[in-house]
Each structure stands twice: as C-alpha cells, then as structure tokens.
C-alpha cells in the first residue's frame, strides 16, 4: 500500500472538479426526494469522518480507534453551546472543530506515549466509555440517556433550515465535505504528509533524518480530530437531536469499515463512505439481518480484496491500460506515449 509519489495535480484537480460539479447539480435531479438527499448528506458527514480517520490510521500509521469520540465531542459541544448560550450554529461549526481538535490532542498525548497495540487499546477503551460517560453526566447538561433534543438549526438571515427542506443543508454539508477533502488532500501531498508516510514506512530511518515522530503524529491527530469535530457539529444541528444511542458503537463500526475498506489511500475512504452509507440504507429493510450482512461483507472484503476499494480501482485502471497498450502495439511500435508503464 505504498503511496504514489508522482503527483499529477492537473488530473486530480480535473477529477475533483467533475465530482464537485456532479454533486452540486445532483439536487436538481432529486429535488422531490428528501430521502435520497438525506442519505447523501449523511454520506458527506461520514465521508469527512472516515477520511480524516484515514489520515491518522493509514497515513500516519497510528492505531487510533477514538475518531468517533472527536466527532461526538464536536457534536455535543456545539449543540450545548447553541442550546444553553444561544451561540449561532455557524459559530458552532468552528467551535466543534476547535473542541474536537483539543480533545484529539488530549487523547494523543497519552496515546502517543505508548506503542502499537497499546495505542489501539487506549483509544478503543475511550470509545467504549464515552457512552456510559454521556449517560452519567446529565447534570452537566449532556442530556444523559435521553439525549439532547430541539437543538437549534442553522439560520441564514431570517431563513431557518427546517428538517423537511433538505436542499440548504445539502449545500452546507457539501461545502464542509469539499473543504475537508481539500484540506486532507493538501496535507497528504505536503511535506507533512510525506513525513507521516516516512514515519509509517521507515520509522527509525525517518527519525534519524530529524523527522520528529511525536510532533507529526500529534499534528495528524489534531487535524483529523478537528475535521471530525466540525462534521460532528454539523451533524448535531442538522439532525437536531443527539443521544448516546444514536451515535453508539454501531456508528463506530460502520465508519471504521469505511476507513478500512477504502484501501488506505486518500479518496478511498470517501468512496467507501458513499458506498457503505447507501448499502446501509438499502439493507435497512432486512432489519436485524443488516449488521450480520455488513459483518460478512467486511470479512469477505478484507479476505478476498485486501487492497480495498483503491485496490479495485487500481486493478481496473491497470487492465484498461494493458488493453490500451496491447491495442496500440501492432499499429505504432515506436510511438512514445500512453500505456507503457
């Protein structure tokens, strides 16, 4: 799962703009279908969460299993600020990012002191106790087991985003998603991203060259956690209700799967988030059979397709290229150009 060092910005940019254009125009085709719009909005939220998770686990090589905690921290902070102090949800997005990032740093400090599986252990334990913690802290205004309800929605001028009208939140979600994807892309392609990969693939060597492991891993945690915090804040003001049951262990598992099935390279987790969110919705009709099917899919995916979605894309691309070069070969042997290598 090496990372491609050859950067083809113009191609990436072209793909990104095409996808963005399609996503911008999509509501026109789906205007009267709030259900599909809702699923798409959830795809954006989980996409941000899964791909920022990908940054810490796949790029920086940290066994971080606490990503949903940052999401929950951002969501609760923004919701409680809006409920009790009347702070605008727009500001709440920023606040969610800051709080998510702060929690991320706080979690990173002990987690980075220990190694490998111990990190997984510590962060996973945090994920497990966040549920009972919320249920016990009703006195602090978290709503306990009952959860928080009637969280203020987004407002623009005098216009309040109602749950029935899905188009305005769709564009907000799309904006957050695009910005997050852009930030992640930039980080991955920058020297910082290179340092993550160097530390992951050749830790001692990278350190010998003066790459500070602690600093960069802390940075990875900080960036990933604040993006998840923003996604959490949006989730809170979009669904307008939060409870430990709604964002429980099953959300953790599904998003973890998105991150893993992606295949460890940048757009992978996002594609997986879209695929799994839709799959999850289609499977809703099967009731309790759904998690069983999901579990089976995960296992077979990991065993049969260890490269994940990016691996599948790579092999498709490879076979297309093969075919193209084979088709080209008899005609022009000397032509330099596409397809070879």
């Amino acid at each position, binding site marked *: *799962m090496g990372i491609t060092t050859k950067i083809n910005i113009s191609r990436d940019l072209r793909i990104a703009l095409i996808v963005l254009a399609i996503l911008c125009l999509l509501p026109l085709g789906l205007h009267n279908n709030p259900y599909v719009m809702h699923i798409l909005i959830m795809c954006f939220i989980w996409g941000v969460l899964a791909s920022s998770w990908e940054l810490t*686990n796949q790029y920086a090589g940290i*066994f971080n299993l606490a990503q949903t905690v940052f999401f929950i921290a951002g969501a609760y902070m923004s919701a409680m600020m809006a409920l009790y102090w009347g702070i605008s949800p727009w500001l709440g997005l920023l606040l969610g990012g800051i709080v998510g990032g702060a929690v991320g740093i706080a979690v990173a400090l*002990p987690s980075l*002191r*220990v*190694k*490998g*599986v*111990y990190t*997984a*252990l*510590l962060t*996973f*334990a*945090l994920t*497990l*106790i966040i549920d*009972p*913690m919320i*249920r*016990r802290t009703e006195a602090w205004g978290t709503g306990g087991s009952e959860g928080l309800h009637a969280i203020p929605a987004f407002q623009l001028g005098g216009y309040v985003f109602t749950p029935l009208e899905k188009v305005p939140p769709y564009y907000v979600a799309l904006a957050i998603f695009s910005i997050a994807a852009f930030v992640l892309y930039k980080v991955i392609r920058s020297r910082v991203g290179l340092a993550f990969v160097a530390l992951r693939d050749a830790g001692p060597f990278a350190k010998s060259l003066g790459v500070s492991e602690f600093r960069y891993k802390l940075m990875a945690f900080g960036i990933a956690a604040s993006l998840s915090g923003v996604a959490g804040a949006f989730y809170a003001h979009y669904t307008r209700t939060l409870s430990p049951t709604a964002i429980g*262990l099953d959300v953790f*598992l599904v998003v*973890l*799967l998105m991150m*893993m099935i992606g295949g*460890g390279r940048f757009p992978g987790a996002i594609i997986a988030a879209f695929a799994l969110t839709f799959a999850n919705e289609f499977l809703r009709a099967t009731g*309790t*059979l*759904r*998690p*069983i099917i*999901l*579990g*089976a*899919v*995960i*296992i077979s995916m*990991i*065993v049969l397709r*260890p490269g994940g979605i990016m691996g599948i894309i790579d092999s498709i691309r490879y076979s297309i290229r093969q075919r193209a070069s084979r088709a080209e070969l008899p005609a022009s042997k000397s032509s330099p150009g596409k397809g070879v290598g």
Partner: protein
Amino acid sequence: MAQLADTLAGGAALGTVYALLALGLALIYGVSRVFNFAHGSFFTWGAYLAYVFLVRLGLSYPATFAIVIPIMFMIGLLVERSIIRPLRLNPNFVFTSIVATLGLAFFMDYLCLRTFGGRLKALPQLFEGSVRYGGVVMSVHELAIAVISIALVVALAIFLSRSRLGMSMRALSQDIFGASLVGIYAGRTFGYTFGISAALAGLAGILLSPLFFLRPLGGWEILAKSFVIVAFGGLGSMQGTLIAAIILGMVESLITGYIGAVWSLVGWFVILLLVLIIRPRGLFGVWE
C-alpha cells in the same frame, strides 16, 4: 467490615475468570500477532451455546461443558483457517486482522441477537448455597468458578512450558520465521492457539453468565476488560495477567458495591489510563 471482605472475595473470584479471558486474548496476540476483537463474541457464544444445552435441552452442566468447549475450539480453529490465515500474506497484517476480527465480532454478535432476541437470559448456578470461612461469606458458585479458573490457568501454564504444542507456541511467539525453520508448523499451531483461546473465552462465558446475564451484545465490555487486564499485567506474562485480573476483579466489585455498577467501566478506563501513564508496559510486561 465483613461486607468489605465479602465484596473483595467475590471480586477475586470474578477476577480469576477474567484472567482466563485475558490469557486467551494475550495468547492469540503473543503467538500469532492477531489482536482479536471478536474475543468478546467468543465469550457470548459460549454463554449462549450453554444456554441452549442447559436450559433449552435440559442437559447437566458436565454434559454442557463436554459439548460446548469442543464446539468453541472448532469455531476458533475455523476462524483462524478461513479468515486470519488468508490475511497473513498482507504486508499490513496487524491492521487488516484487527478489522477482519471486528467484522467477525459484528457478525457473531448480531447473529446471536437475531437467533436469541434481545431479552436478558440467565443460566442456573453451578452449585447452590454459600460457604462461610472465617468471617467471609461466599457463594459456592463463586468458589467453584475460582477453583476451575485457577486450575485452568495452572494447566495452561504447564501446557505452555511442558507440552510439545505449548513449546511450539512459545517458539512462534518469539520468532515466527525461526520457528518455521526448525520445523514447527506455524499455520497449524496458530489454528490450535485460536481454538484454545476461543474455548477459554467460551468457558468463561459459561462461568460468568449465572452471575451476570446473557446479552447478545455484552461481549464488548468483556473485550474491554480483557484489554485492560492484559495492559495492566503486561503482555507476555501469565503471572502478571492473573494478578492483574484478581486486583481488577476486586476493584470492580468495590466500585459496583460502593459507588454503582454503571461506573465500573469508567473505573476500568481510569485504571488503564493510570497504568499507561505510570508504567506503560504493565506490572510484569516487557516491550517487544
């Protein structure tokens, strides 16, 4: 004072069963480098299988043990063979195996939920009644599970140090490549390791279910507790694991008895945090 002693004794008994769980988790990790997230699900399955044979079919406890433990062993073997072994060639093995076992846990837990429903179920106790020794009162069931668990821990220790298979396991835990060179079948031994671990977890499920309830999704808590014990005792040290498990079992009993059951998981986490901050390699552990 007497109540405190009772609480501690009950907690220690609980702790010995936790030791079985933690040892199973540590065994798989030590020998085959797999962090088994489905460990709690093995626990749950053991308990539900026992429920089928004991309550639904009306068999006795000895018969149930004789049936359920081999079944759990086979399940462990099957899991290793069909899910873990194909992943072994993957360069990112540690991580992919974590996700595969997470998927497995998902699969097993919800299969349980679908088959048995969400209603809490209970198993009968191994033995009724209670014993008094000095000033301490303990139920016979608790005493029995402590005896069984400690006997098994000792048996496991002897097995690992004396038997051929046990020595192969230890060799593999030191160096997979080197062990393979001297003729140890790595794959087969990994399979047995999974089988033993699953059997231990299943057995722990049977022993603990009369004290708690059977819950289809209760395995996560067990997994978390096993984690904490392994971290506290230190990876790779059986005696550390046993001591850590007993201490933590007593702490859990104290929290449940004096503060409230809902805080027990938080207590576990605080302990984990303290251990990792003060002594990250655990009581008796060594960094690999």
